[in-house]
């Protein structure tokens, strides 16, 4: 938290720029387009929005990289980036906290009250006398009442490990191994970069990016399985809800993190960016990657095991 700057080094304040306003307009397209798409009014605006958002962001970052190479950023500006990234990751932590909080509330309170536990169980007893509190609920309260006529259906099978014999074919375990390994490989890459060993850096970073995309593919397979064979969908009550929302947002972050890392790989292998001292783009990507990894560990514990 030091504010000491070497004297005469001025903080770089960029000239006026039209990137942000273009980005804001892109967000207008994106916001209206997303709402239109959700409400079934067509997806044209959404595509324009996504394309312009990605395009503007890519251009914005390319400008930042060029400024950095032009020597415009001081150690103080780099500190700003470091703090900025740290606080951004904190905001992401809080986003996941909301969904984990919802999961814990549902598992601890909603389900047991609906099952008739305690003073609060009265409503559950009266409305859904047949519903039994279990986790995961394979039968939703509505289904317990209406049998097969139910609007919302419970899944036929959960994502938990059903018997130890199935361990070898249990996808989440492979996902865990893939992601934990990638956290190690991204660390090896960082160590290699600090020793200025570019070849080793590119190698380990490449492995990390590969693992990231393997994870995404495995996750897609898992979703396919859930929808096609397990009867587990977004509509199958609160278990499907929490399962897909938590793993879905995590998967999205893995995809973003993977693209983030792949960009750094391209910069290093293709354009020879980064030195042993200056490589914040990579460092930020690796922090983000470790964060995504930690979220997965929590997910594995609370969504797949406990």
């Amino acid at each position, binding site marked *: *938290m030091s*504010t*000491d*700057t070497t004297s*005469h080094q*001025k*903080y770089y*304040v960029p*000239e*006026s*720029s*039209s*990137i*942000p*306003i273009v*980005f*804001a*307009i892109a*967000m*207008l397209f*994106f*916001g*209206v387009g*997303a*709402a239109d798409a*959700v*409400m079934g009014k067509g997806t044209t605006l959404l595509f324009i929005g996504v394309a312009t958002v990605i395009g503007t962001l890519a251009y*914005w970052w390319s400008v930042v990289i060029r400024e950095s190479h032009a020597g415009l950023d001081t150690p103080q500006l780099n*500190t*700003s980036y470091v*703090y900025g990234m740290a*606080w951004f990751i*904190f*905001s992401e932590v*809080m*986003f996941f*906290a*909301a*969904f984990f909080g*919802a999961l814990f*509330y*549902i598992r601890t*309170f*909603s389900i047991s*009250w*609906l099952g008739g536990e*305690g003073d*609060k169980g009265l409503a559950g007893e009266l*409305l859904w006398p047949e519903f039994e509190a279990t986790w995961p609920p394979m039968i939703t*309260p*509505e289904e317990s009442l209406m049998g097969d006529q139910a*609007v*919302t259906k419970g899944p036929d099978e959960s994502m938990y490990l059903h018997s130890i014999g199935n361990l070898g074919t249990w996808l989440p375990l492979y996902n865990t191994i893939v992601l934990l390994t990638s956290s190690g490989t991204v660390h090896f890459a960082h160590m290699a970069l600090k020793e200025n060993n570019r070849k080793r850096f590119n190698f380990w970073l490449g492995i990390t990016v590969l693992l990231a995309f393997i994870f995404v593919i495995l996750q897609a397979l898992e979703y396919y399985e859930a929808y096609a064979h397990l009867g587990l969908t*977004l*509509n199958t*009550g*609160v278990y*499907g*809800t929490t399962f897909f*929302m938590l793993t879905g947002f995590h998967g999205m972050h893995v995809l973003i993190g993977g693209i983030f890392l792949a960009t750094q790989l391209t910069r290093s292998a293709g354009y020879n960016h980064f030195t042993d001292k200056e490589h914040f783009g990579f460092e930020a990507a690796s922090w983000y990657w470790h964060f995504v990894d930690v979220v997965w560990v929590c997910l594995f514990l609370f969504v797949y095991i406990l």
Partner: protein
Amino acid sequence: MSAVVENHNHHDDHHHGPKKGIMRWLTTTNHKDIGTLYLWFSFAAFLLGGAFAMGIRAELFEPGLQLMDPIRYNQLVTMHGLIMIFGGVMPAFVGLANWLIPLQIGAPDMAMPRMNNLSFWLLPTAFAILLSTAFMEGGMPGFGWTFYAPLSTNYPNVAYFVFAIHIMGASSIMGSINVIVTIMNMRAPGMTLMKMPLFVWSWLITAYLLIAVMPVLAGAVTMLLMDAYFGTSFFDAAGGGDPVLFQHVFWFFGHPEVYIMILPAFGITSHIISTFSRKPLFGHSSMVYAMVSIAVLSFVVWAHHMFTVGMPLVAELFFMWATMLIAIPTGVKVFNWCATIFKGSITYETPMLFSIAFVVLFTIGGFSGLMLAITPADFQYHDTYFVVAHFHYVLVPGAVFSIMAAVYYWLPKWTGNMYDEKMGRLHFWLSFAGVNITFFPQHFVGLAGMPRRYADYALQFAEWNAVSSVGAFLFGLSQLLFLYIVVKTVFAGKKATPQVWDGADGLEWTVDSPAPYHTFDVPPKVK
């Protein structure tokens, strides 16, 4: 604190001045320009949200349905709340932060100037999306600014509301990251944390709260969107969820949000009261600790908004006691302001009038908050006009008065001109009368049992509602006077000195009035 501004003459100093015309405002990276944009945006939102409030009060002037159907009324109530909170109060404080933080800590600008511009321009974007629902079939959201499920999950056009909130949240998070990084990384050498001006401190804490809770709001609207359009069951008991879960997630955001809208006001008030009492602030460090305590406590009191939803008894008790604890640090702050005024050489310029009114009226709002915190009593008060009176006392003569005080206090620094003191005082007295005539009677009708969010009411509440409506129109119209005073000061007025107020202290008073386009290119030394 005294400061010496060093003048280095660099030959590579090529200052980029402002661009000409509209492009200056669209593309600016200057914290002063962006602060101005935020402040004008918030003023516009204040007038629009105020117009909606006038609609509400016109309908409530007498019992019966006169001007609109209940759906339109609900839409006005909802949009009034959303516009005032996300468009009025929050952007006003961000605007002040933009103008003042770099000046007060001796930084050349905000840490990430282009992102700063983006934070601002996302706001008009988000409000364009939100307001566009007015022209759609199904109309604007009408489920209250708290958008409780399952009402909101069954409401038309809720997707536009959701993405508007997402974009506002992105704007707030980026703005807050900018503020925190600026404060942590760009203070002038010698400005230790405890030497930092209180407005800066209040914003450091506010920004932390914002980064912690805006993502939770994003989570809440995402769950809402999924429940409304994708068949999930977060808030649907038939699928195993719980509508009360919505309220927990929402108020986990909502309560810190309340402090987000008042902490910067604490900072502003501390500066102004000290200046016009011509005494250093009493208990500077205890002010800091009080704000930190309030921020920490704000995370563990959310369910006091939900005493009547049927929580387990132990939760009701916990949230009652935790809420009451907040009275302690708040009491410390009020005590310190009073102790600063005590035996001071006081003059009553407009900012001081607004700040003294802030201390008195905010404290009244605080006391009614304590009443509401008592669980058994809240069963009587819940969702009555007593609650409306309570939060309007902390938000209007609280947050909004402090913003007006800040505008009068720093306007000479921003424009180089003194505002018209007589007109300023007139504006104060009209606002002061208007606010109290509007909101004080709402305590009475609330305690007598008048419920919130109804377009019609029983005859016994007629007199006080009529009084309240008259007060509201007085308050609303006197804000046009405020607009006139500000516009006049921008273009003309007695020239302001750099010091502006003889009792003022801080780095912002060491630069010229109006503050040059670029200040503190080289950080000043703070002793």
